[in-house]
């Protein structure tokens, strides 16, 4: 446990690494959602067009 406490600085160090992970995961998640939405919007529009034809 001493290794994790880091001489009293553990909370700071771990929160930094945790935050980094969080931000990167969040950014990737947003990117994925946006991709899906763009893809689905195009799909819906194309399907609607096809049905009309």
């Amino acid at each position, binding site marked *: 446990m001493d*290794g994790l406490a*880091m*001489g*009293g*600085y*553990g909370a*700071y*160090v771990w*929160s*930094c*690494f945790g*935050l*980094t992970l969080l*931000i*990167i995961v*969040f*950014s*990737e998640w*947003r*990117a*994925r959602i*946006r*991709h899906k939405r*763009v*893809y689905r*919007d*195009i*799909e819906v*529009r*194309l399907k609607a067009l*096809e049905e009309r034809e």
Partner: protein
Amino acid sequence: MWTWFHKLASPPHFYRTAALLSPWFAVPGLALIAWGTWQGLFVVPMDYQQGDAFRIIYVHVPSAYLSLMAYMIMATGGAIGLIWRMKLSHAVAAAAAPIGAAFTFLALATGSIWGRPMWGTWWEWGDPRMMSELILLFLYFGYMALRAAIDDTAKADKASAVLAIVGVVNVVIVHFSVEWWSSLHQGQTVFKRGTMDADMKTALLIMILGFTLLFGSMLLRRIRTEVLYRERRTRWVRDMILSPKGGG
């Protein structure tokens, strides 16, 4: 060389290639980050002045480095798009902005967390690098706000490219003026240079490399989305989406 370049720059080709390429950046990137984190957190000895708090640099420095690199990519992409009217290059610029802003925020947040035990305050106005980073974050916000405010994509591309180029010149001036300002007010410097031993340096370089590769993968994925959105009216997108296999 040029034919290869033109082929890569063609949207359908890029769209497919980027999907294949992205894991080739992400996997080695994550592996390097994992190794660097393990080294940085547990193996490398602690700094004799800062104690274990110095281990924060293993995420702070790569973030700060990427925040600048993303801005450079954004501005270069915009400039190439303006001069040679290359659409893919505008898509790169648009994709780089949110990632760059995320890393800028990360650099600020980790710097601030480091500051708490070291300076005894969450935020030190006198530190020139933190100030430059903060202004950089504002530049990112301005860039993204301008993009969001213009409905027409082609117009938004060009207008934001002009802003990014002006911003690059500004980043340099901000750096020097803030440095001068901080010297007047006896600002403190974070992370003094030259006090790191070889192991510390190696681990940091590994982390920077890993972050850069991960950034490359994130960028590729976002460019794909941009390309798909920009090409939504084209034949190849139609064929791809309506084909039974789909494109993903």
